[in-house]
């Protein structure tokens, strides 16, 4: 069985099928992109894996452990780290405190926090460790949140639009960061992204969703040249 496995997963919102029979499998250590038009159910899939939402039907397992029905904090402790679509850092805490919190939050309370400040270097925030997260730029907050995911040392990382709102330079640096993350400790990464430039650079298998279903899976080139996908997703973009 794949490391992360979704089998015939459904999620209805008052009769509307946001996720409609999704099968998805990621091997351990795999880097995979999940793309699709707005409202196609990508973020809902993330919410179902991380436990923010409960699936209407279907099975979700991580390394054979059933995730369905578990509380979000339990799923996080099983090794699922998540970066939200909107940066969700703690604005009242410094960069170092945000990282420390993320590194220690999964432990039972009472045990000491392990300093995670060295991670600031990885996410290009080494000179900002003492700054409050609220004063960071948008791109820097995205990086901090990726750093917070890393700090928890998860086995599966869910990254929801990690480069949204980033400059071209920041996007390139983020691609490099994600590629390095994928190579170390055998972490499995599922990343949602719209930016076609990002997807091309990331150079990993891509799964396309539309209207709650999986439409296709393949390399970036295969997906890019798939007429069905082009019509639905790339076709309405001038840069594709």
């Amino acid at each position, binding site marked *: 069985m794949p490391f992360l496995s979704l089998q015939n997963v459904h999620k209805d919102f008052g009769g509307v099928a946001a996720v409609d029979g999704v099968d998805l499998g990621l091997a351990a250590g795999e880097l995979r992109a999940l793309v699709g038009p707005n409202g196609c159910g990508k973020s809902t899939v993330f919410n179902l894996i991380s436990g*923010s939402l409960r699936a209407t039907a279907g099975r979700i397992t991580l390394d054979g452990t059933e995730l369905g029905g578990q*509380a979000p904090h339990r799923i996080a402790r099983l090794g699922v780290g998540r970066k939200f679509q909107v940066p969700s850092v703690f604005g009242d805490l410094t960069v170092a*405190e945000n990282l420390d919190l993320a590194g220690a939050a999964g432990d039972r309370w009472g045990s000491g926090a392990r300093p995670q400040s060295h991670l600031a270097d990885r996410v290009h925030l080494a000179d900002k460790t003492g700054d409050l997260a609220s004063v960071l730029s948008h791109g820097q907050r995205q990086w901090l949140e990726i750093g917070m995911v890393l700090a928890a040392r998860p086995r599966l990382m869910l990254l929801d639009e990690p480069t949204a709102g980033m400059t071209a330079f920041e996007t390139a640096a983020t691609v490099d960061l994600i590629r390095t993350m994928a190579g170390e400790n055998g972490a499995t990464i599922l990343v949602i992204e719209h930016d076609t430039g990002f997807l091309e650079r990331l150079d990993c298998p891509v799964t396309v969703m539309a209207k709650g279903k999986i439409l296709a899976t393949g390399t970036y080139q295969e997906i890019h040249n798939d007429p069905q996908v082009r019509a639905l997703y790339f076709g309405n973009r001038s840069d594709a």
Partner: protein
Amino acid sequence: MIEAFPIFLDALSFVLILVLVASGLVIVFGMMGIINLAHGELFLLGAYTVVVAQGFGAPFWLAAALAPIVVGVAGLAIEFLLVRFVVHRPLDTILATWGLSIVIKQLVVLAFGPGSHSVAVPIDGAFSVGEFSYPAYRIVLMIVATAVIAGAGYVLVGTRFGLLARAVIARPGTSASLGINTGRVTQVSFAIGAALAGLAGALVAPLISVDPQMGLGFLVPAFLAILVGGAGSMTGLVAGGGLVGGLDSVLGGWISPVLAQITVFVLAILVIRLRPGGLFPGRGRRP
């Protein structure tokens, strides 16, 4: 100068008692955003814990140490049985906790009668410096209150639990995805807030008449102090408590209690109008 000193000490002692009572509320209301109208009754339960414990022959300080434990456990139960079901709907929270306050008051009336009880002052005598003297227990209470307020502030800002609590309050979703058991943290925070109210009730019991209505008289100025000071931090609470309690006490002693109340309310309205976040805004729940 010598004449002004007792007024100053009275004001200081009133401010510290007010801040002590409100310190539990600053966690529950200021930081967690739970409008707990039964906070005054948690204060009441603390005072009655002392009455009961002393009835069994326990010395005052043992009874006072017992009060936060008893009321903290009551807080856990209240959070588990009531508050967690209504916490996301503020209006329901107000109604539910108001109802709870009535239930607690009536249970106390059933168990102890509507009359007032008195708790003997544990430390007799007075501190005297020259011709000036002041009741010794009030001095001790001021010291204990200062220590408890500082301790509560340290727990919130300086400890790992405080960090988790502030994280959960600021961003529940992110906190859960980091592996924090948000439900548990909320429950414990609420219990700590309740325990502080219970401790305040126990410590203040020797100075006031312990009766089923005692909670309300402290609930209103406590909410006022938090709103004026800025919800969500101990610094704000000390500032708000200082302004509300200090003015009330000083003006009440010099001029008249009614004029003092009017002044306090007018000032509170002005502060909240001009600085909606209070004197020390920041931290706490985002809008």
